């Protein structure tokens, strides 16, 4: 009897030792997991979890495993702080910030006090990386507006452009303003500029009629997929022939519009650094695994989150972190961020001290209900 008992005790002890030898880095993020923008939060959660699983399977970083935790913030700045605080209670050491800009702005105020490294996958507003500890994977709103105008004029897609944007949304306004000012410089004619607000975002017949009357060749939609889904279905029944062109917020449109309606999205172009059908090894690996695990094609939010976790891995390696109890962990990771290069699924990225990534923008087109990389005809 005694023998058995001692055996059990020894076994338990080894288990304890095993467990304590492996450290786990808690990576926390907040995002809308319920509510209107839930697709974004869910995508980010899936993408980040997938990256962490891959890293853990490969043995982690210097024996340190990754654990991704996401809290719901419903895209609300107050709830983002609550989510962040819960994650701090749970031992978070690196933050994925918040998925949406408004929420991220309030979150970084807290993170700045803690001095924690923040890499937001998708908060695109300029001020979201205003502190030294904050970095991002996506483009900023101003950059997207400029890139979109350049892309349209460089590829000679259209010269007469109509815009429909959400005046009550900071993301939309940010892209819109920069697009309009850039359009004048590159010779794009904005024939009509239609606005709506989040209180009237279901019926777009007025705006679409104006677009139709203006004779625009292209409709620029710097908005989120939810509203774009309404616009596209209504545009189809209104018989508008123009091409629709959006930014990263339009990503996820195929899921939003639902099976069977995807023909309304036919030919829609998105400016995004990620194309799910790209043939390089990384993207193929990411897309197949993502489909297997979550049953849908990854969008750009998932890709950004996936890259964000890999950026954390790179920073950990660069800083040579072997012990998470290191008192200088935050400083080491933050200074490592500007030294790393990440070859991710959204392109090859390096970061400057401002926290902005440098990568090139590409466009995808929706063909036969799937995202296909854009190639100039």
């Amino acid at each position, binding site marked *: 009897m005694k023998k058995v008992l001692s055996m059990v005790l020894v076994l338990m002890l080894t288990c304890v030792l095993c467990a304590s030898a492996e450290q786990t880095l808690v990576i926390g993020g907040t995002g809308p997991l319920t509510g209107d923008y839930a697709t974004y939060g869910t995508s980010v959660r899936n993408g980040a979890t997938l990256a962490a699983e891959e890293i853990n399977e490969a043995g982690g970083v210097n024996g340190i495993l990754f654990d991704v935790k996401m*809290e*719901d913030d419903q895209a609300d700045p107050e709830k983002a702080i609550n989510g962040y605080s819960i994650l701090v209670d749970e031992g978070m050491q690196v933050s994925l910030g918040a998925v949406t800009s408004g929420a991220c702005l309030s979150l970084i*105020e807290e993170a700045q006090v803690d001095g924690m490294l923040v890499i937001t996958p998708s908060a695109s507003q300029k001020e979201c990386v205003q502190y030294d500890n904050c970095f991002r994977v996506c483009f900023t709103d101003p950059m997207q507006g400029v890139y979109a105008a350049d892309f349209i004029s460089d590829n000679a897609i259209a010269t007469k452009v109509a815009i429909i944007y959400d005046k009550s949304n900071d993301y939309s306004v940010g892209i819109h303003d920069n697009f309009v000012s850039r359009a004048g410089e590159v010779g794009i004619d904005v024939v009509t500029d239609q606005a709506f607000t989040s209180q009237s975002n279901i019926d777009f017949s007025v705006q679409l009629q104006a677009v139709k009357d203006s004779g625009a060749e292209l409709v620029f939609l710097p908005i989120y997929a939810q509203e774009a889904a309404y616009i596209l279905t209504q545009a189809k029944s209104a018989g508008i022939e123009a091409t629709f062109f959006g930014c990263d917020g339009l990503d996820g449109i195929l899921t939003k519009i639902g099976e069977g309606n995807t023909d309304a999205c036919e030919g829609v172009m998105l400016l995004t650094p990620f194309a799910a059908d790209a043939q390089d090894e990384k993207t193929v690996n990411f897309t197949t695994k993502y489909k297997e695990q979550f049953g849908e094609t990854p969008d750009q939010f998932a890709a950004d989150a996936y890259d964000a976790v890999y950026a954390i891995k790179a920073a950990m390696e660069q800083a040579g972190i072997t012990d998470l109890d290191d008192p200088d962990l935050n400083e080491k990771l933050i200074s490592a961020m500007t030294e790393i290069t990440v070859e991710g699924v959204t392109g090859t990225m390096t970061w400057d001290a401002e926290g902005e990534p440098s990568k090139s923008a590409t466009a995808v087109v929706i063909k036969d209900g799937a995202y296909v990389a854009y190639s100039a005809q």
Partner: protein
Amino acid sequence: MKLKKATVNKLITYLMVIGMFTAIYILNEGGYLSRQLQKMLVPICINIILAISLNITVGFLGELTLGHAAFMSVGAYSGCLFSIAMKETLPMAARFPLAMLVGGLVAAVFGILVGIPVLRLRGDYLAIVTLAFGEIIRNVILNIDFFGGASGLKGTPRDSTFLIAAIVVLITMFVAMNLQSSRHGRAIMAIRDNRIAAESAGINLTYYKLLAFVLAAFFAGVAGVLYGHNLASITPDKFDYNRSIEILVVVVLGGLGSVRGAIIAAIIMYILPEYLRFMKDYRMLIYSIVLILMMLLNSSPAAIAIKTRIREALSGVFKKSKKTAINGKGGSEA
């Protein structure tokens, strides 16, 4: 000394709130609170202030208004602009109380401006007009670049602390409960109970209605200032009618006209969704179901009947023991 029942009730409320605040303050200073709870303290206080202030119009005056968030936004924007302008010139100890005063007063002025035409209406009409007014304010703020438009007003110093918020809650409570038992309060409640009778008794309807309305607007404005100084940025879309309705839900749940109920309901309504987080994606669904259940338990006739029966059974036990005591006494005298 015999205290009036109303006074005892008031004392219980004060003791409850002060006791709770002191306990939390001590725990917080000692570092015993989780980060999650620490960060929830100020928002809970803001919700309490909003609920008590809306209770003045909905509970005391008996008029349904759906524009409370608009007064909050007016207060938030004016208070935050004041703080941003005075960031360098005034120390926090002087700046923040002044900002709250500014926010409250501006909201009160808007309360008068809106109240004069709007309070001629009653019931559903008033509710709709206040709803419309709230939307107007939100859209005006959204379209003026000076207020930061859709991306919001940034750069407000984060001055809100639990101590300040708790003091404001106590002031709001004090004003609301004193109003309730004052001559003015009785006049306001007389209007609620019977408008015609109140008018024929010589009560100036317009004056008292406006008084309640403006007082509610003032405290909503102060709550807005606290809200703005708790977050780094405020955006107009956080002050839409959904927020007005959220506050109304708290007031209805707490019991119309009951300050203590409003406080308890405000705390529950804020904490509940946060502590339902373990439900993951079903959180908001469960939250809604709990809300329905709480409303039913609070106000359905069947639930009330059960509650009265329990109360009677309980008081029956007490009464019996009291009765025997009295009887015994009487017997000895005879």
